[in-house]
């Protein structure tokens, strides 16, 4: 009971406390190590820059672009990852056959593929969405695979004993029992979608927060750079906590979200 209360208010206290701590450490690092403001500007300068950034309506356009890319990529990765995980989780030989391809696909440096992306998908959002989807896909796939494989034998027997169809088994057993794994994968994946979209924006296009990062980097405007980073961290956190919230709503029965009997 008390635990749950704590979980409710703690983030609202801890986040500001951590922020204050961060700012203090940051200021100390800058002054004690004597780090140049071109490398790591003092928090005050970043705050000022952040203020300017936030009042600029163009910024919100960039945020919107990035969020759109991240969410689209994430959604694609989620659908493909869950489907792929369920199919490969069931058909062991297919998984064994596919693994080398999946792994190879992940480690291919995307920077080399940009011209192909551009030729096939143009300069628009698509290539960034694909980047976000590629990075997010793998954690979801592997976690779903683990989840499907970890379905309780006794539970599986129940469904088999009822002569359940594949779809019913998926719907009533595999999906709910895999959901905790899916969500753990999703929490990793949303973060990697953000990274993917940002990297995609570095490599091409002229919109989004990744673009702002590169242009302030090239303009040697360190305070603006760090302000964009702060904004990015905020956007990433909001997206992450949206996934986390979804988890709490969707799988209230799972231990990973329910409070402990006692600490």
């Amino acid at each position: 009971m008390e635990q749950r209360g704590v979980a409710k208010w703690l983030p609202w206290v801890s986040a500001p406390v951590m922020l204050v701590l961060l700012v203090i450490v940051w200021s100390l690092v800058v002054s004690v190590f004597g780090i140049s403001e071109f490398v790591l500007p003092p928090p005050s300068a970043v705050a000022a820059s952040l203020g300017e950034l936030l009042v600029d309506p163009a910024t919100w356009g960039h945020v919107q672009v990035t969020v759109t890319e991240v969410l689209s990529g994430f959604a694609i990765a989620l659908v493909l990852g869950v489907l792929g995980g369920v199919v490969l989780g069931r058909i062991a030989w297919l998984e064994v056959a596919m693994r080398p391809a999946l792994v190879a696909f992940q480690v291919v440096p995307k920077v080399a593929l940009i011209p192909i992306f551009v030729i096939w998908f143009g300069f628009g959002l698509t290539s960034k969405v694909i980047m976000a989807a590629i990075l997010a896909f793998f954690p979801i796939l592997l976690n779903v695979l683990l989840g499907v494989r970890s379905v309780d034998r006794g539970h599986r027997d129940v469904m088999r004993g009822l002569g359940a169809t594949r779809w019913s088994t998926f719907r009533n057993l595999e999906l709910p029992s895999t959901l905790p794994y899916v969500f753990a994968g999703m929490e990793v994946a949303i973060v990697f979608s953000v990274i993917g979209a940002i990297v995609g924006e570095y490599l091409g296009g002229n919109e989004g927060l990744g673009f702002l990062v590169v242009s302030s980097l090239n303009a040697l405007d360190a305070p603006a750079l760090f302000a964009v980073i702060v904004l990015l961290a905020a956007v990433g956190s909001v997206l992450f906590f949206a996934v986390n919230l979804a988890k709490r709503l969707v799988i209230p029965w799972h231990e990973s979200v329910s409070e402990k009997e006692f600490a």
Partner: protein
Amino acid sequence: GAGGGGDRVTFLNVLPLETLSFTPELVASAGGHFAREGLDVQFQTTRGSAQAIQTLIAGSALVSRIGDIETMIAVGERNAPLVNVSTMLQQVTVRMVSAASAPIRTPADFAGKTIGLPSQGGTSETTLDLVLARGGVDPASVQRQVVGLAPGVFDLVVQGRIAAYVASLDTSEQLRIQRPEAVIFNPADVIASGAQLYATSRPQLEDPRSRDLMTRYLRGIRSAVNAVLADPSGDQTLATIRSRFDFPILQDTALAKTSLAAYSANWNAAGPQNLMRTDPARWQATYAELSSAGVMPGGLQPDPWFTNELLGS
């Protein structure tokens, strides 16, 4: 880097070292010019000039070769403690590459087109802005599109997805040979900016020890450059480079010689008396160009941003 137990110096190359753009460094290293100055030079590749400038300012490296544009912006607009100690390439080295089907040969040709850039907000974009300003073209009428660096970018031009893109001198030389349909526009025809210079941070310049290293570094480069210039055929130079390095363009002797000639001409573009020196007039002209194009504020005094003293003797 050079072998032996000389004084250690870190040079930051903003591109991989394996291009003829770095001929002075390659020859100085392979030909023992650094060693003769008692230097052990380490080459470190960084991602773009912004990172190089940051690293210089942080004191993690002594010297880098960067553009005059980013140096002026860094010093003039951001008050970065950076000093130009020697201008190596007197003229712009980037080129605008278009296709014969829709060639771009003058600043006016850029109007209303989409131009590919290797990255956003960097030197290449500023160069484009300067060209447009020279041609009186409204910068807003030109779409910019980051396309990165990849062998296939020229195909985006061929396909008409972009009208032209900004490439390095090496790339344009290579394209001239590999892709006859490539049309190359040299911004040096219309602008003064775009030189490349050796920069170090002001605190390092003021510290006698690192100032001495800097001086010896430049001497080593000058000795290498003189050796290259003394070999108009390029055979000796290529042999020296090959003795230590191996990269694709070295395999293609004809292409390598063309590139070498282009670079040598560039070093001397401000006259032999200005070899490895910053011509104050050009420096002023560059500043005027930048400020009038609105790239950086006007009314500043750019003279203290460079020095020719190190090689003065």
